[in-house]
């Protein structure tokens, strides 16, 4: 029964991808190159095969990968429609992403001592951060890129996952921070680590990422701290820091002002957000249809603002469906955490679900003007090599934790 349902769902995904592919080629009718056809057909087959493979291979959760496949298909169609070259690149990144999903999943499943490398996680994240500060280069007003051998990537995306591991190590009491002598200061040291990360991100002007870091930290702390006083302290620090940021830093102030009233600044700093709102209202219930709207009017439509572009051409119904897909995904993540007996893996699955949930909320909330806009990618949908790659790595880890039942690292004797 269940198996048959999976087959139907998989086939629906397959049909969706085929229709959209043919639509895209009709859109570019006279001029299209053969490589793109082969690449996209290959991806469709890869998605189909990997869903079957995962169903056979994994005893854990079977829904998350299926949901993500749907989301990324919607994303890549939209990116390809906005910019063919970027769409082609995104197709290649999706190949890399799916393959790295399987690699991460297998490594995570087979290796058992993930909780023993606290120092390694800590040192590597500081190295990545400082390397970005020293060697990084600037785009759209923030230093967040690092280039190694011609390939540039955003270290902060990777550090997000490492942060989850660091917090999982600390709160599962597997580090020296829980030794009786210094366990009193555990919370303070944790806060010092996380705030140093956030401070570096703030210097890099990466507001979105610092918000995600803070949210993951406060979420895990709220669940696992022995003293809820610290959570309250953190919230107060956040409110204080936010207010200070508003008065001290221009880029914080701009985000806030354009959130309150973008129409006043429609020609300058409010341009992005107003274009995004126009696009959303243009779409209506079912959208204008792919290839019939003007998503190119929105700056960064392929990246931060892809949600508005999708709504313009595919309608608010698709927009709601995307939010629902993310909701089910995060729900499955928490479900995995509830089933997990080992505290370390439980925190990891909570952390990763929080990561995707918060990131989606912040960017979707930003483009529909629900909360102030901060630049983040919509996981699995937006264009971006690092974003796609690290999201798939995180997904692989989540898939791995869904299987590590009763495994337990070192037993608590």
């Amino acid at each position, binding site marked *: 029964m269940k198996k048959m349902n999976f087959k139907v769902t998989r086939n629906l995904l397959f049909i969706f991808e085929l229709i959209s592919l043919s639509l895209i080629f009709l859109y570019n009718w006279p001029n299209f190159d053969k490589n793109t056809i082969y690449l996209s057909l290959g991806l469709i087959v890869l998605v189909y095969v990997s869903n079957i493979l995962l169903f056979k291979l994994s005893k854990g959760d079977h*829904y998350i990968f299926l949901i993500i496949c749907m989301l990324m298909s919607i994303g890549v169609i939209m990116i390809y429609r906005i910019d063919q070259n970027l769409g082609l690149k995104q197709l290649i990144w999706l190949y890399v992403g799916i393959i790295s999903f399987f690699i991460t999943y297998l490594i995570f499943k087979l290796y058992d001592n993930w909780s023993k490398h606290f120092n390694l996680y800590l040192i590597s994240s500081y190295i990545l951060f400082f390397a970005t500060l020293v060697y990084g280069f600037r785009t759209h007003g923030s230093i967040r890129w690092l280039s190694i051998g011609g390939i540039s990537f955003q270290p902060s995306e990777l550090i997000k996952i490492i942060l989850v591991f660091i917090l999982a190590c600390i709160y599962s009491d597997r580090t020296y921070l829980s030794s009786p002598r210094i366990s009193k200061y555990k919370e303070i040291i944790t806060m010092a680590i996380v705030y140093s990360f956030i401070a570096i991100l703030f210097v890099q002007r990466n507001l979105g990422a610092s918000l995600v870091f803070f949210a993951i930290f406060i979420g895990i702390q709220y669940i696992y701290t022995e003293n809820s006083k610290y959570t309250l302290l953190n919230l107060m620090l956040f409110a204080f820091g936010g207010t200070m940021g508003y008065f001290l830093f221009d880029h914080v102030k701009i985000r806030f002002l354009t959130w309150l009233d973008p129409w006043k600044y429609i020609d300058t700093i409010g341009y992005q957000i107003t274009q995004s709102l126009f696009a959303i209202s243009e779409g209506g219930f079912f959208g204008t249809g792919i290839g019939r709207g003007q998503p190119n009017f929105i700056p960064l439509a392929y990246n931060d603002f892809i949600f508005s572009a999708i709504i313009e051409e595919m309608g608010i119904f698709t927009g709601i469906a995307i939010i629902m897909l993310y909701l089910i995904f995060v729900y499955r993540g928490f479900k995995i955490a509830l089933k997990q007996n080992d505290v370390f893996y439980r925190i990891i699955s909570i952390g990763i679900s929080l990561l995707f949930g918060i990131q989606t909320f912040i960017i979707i909330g930003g483009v529909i003007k629900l909360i102030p806009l901060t630049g983040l990618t919509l996981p699995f949908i937006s264009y971006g090599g690092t974003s796609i790659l690290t999201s798939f790595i995180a997904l692989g880890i989540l898939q791995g934790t869904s299987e590590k039942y009763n495994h337990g690292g070192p037993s608590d004797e």
Partner: protein
Amino acid sequence: MVMKMFNIISILAKYIFVFIIYMFIFLIIRMIYLDINSLSKHENFKGAYLKLLNRLEDLPYKLNDSYSIEEEISLGRNNDNDIVLKDPYISKHHFRIVKDENEYFIEDLNSSNGTYVNGERIIDVKKLTYGDIIKVGNIEFMFINQE
């Protein structure tokens, strides 16, 4: 000409897309629902099970209200037991209950503090009947067989 055809197809496709995506979501939710449903049916034990007599709130560790006994169930401090009790009075492998031709037998696995059935410390194996009270440390279970 091609452009006109494209427009018609694109308008058609947008409805199909919305339909497919919602169908997809519906199927996933239905599968999850069936999953949860089969789990909660599993909680309404049909056969034999152990019912915890202590109040869950009084215990410093996490336990379930009841544990179904399929073929065999084991209790102990180690993580590979079916019921894991992180209690210093419990041995790593404390006891197990085995089903044999529709009858259930409890076997003490050389635990240091012993397993008590209705107040009597058991030596190796004892047959269980409906309503027997199994005591380990200060945890008490009642054995219930509905077959």
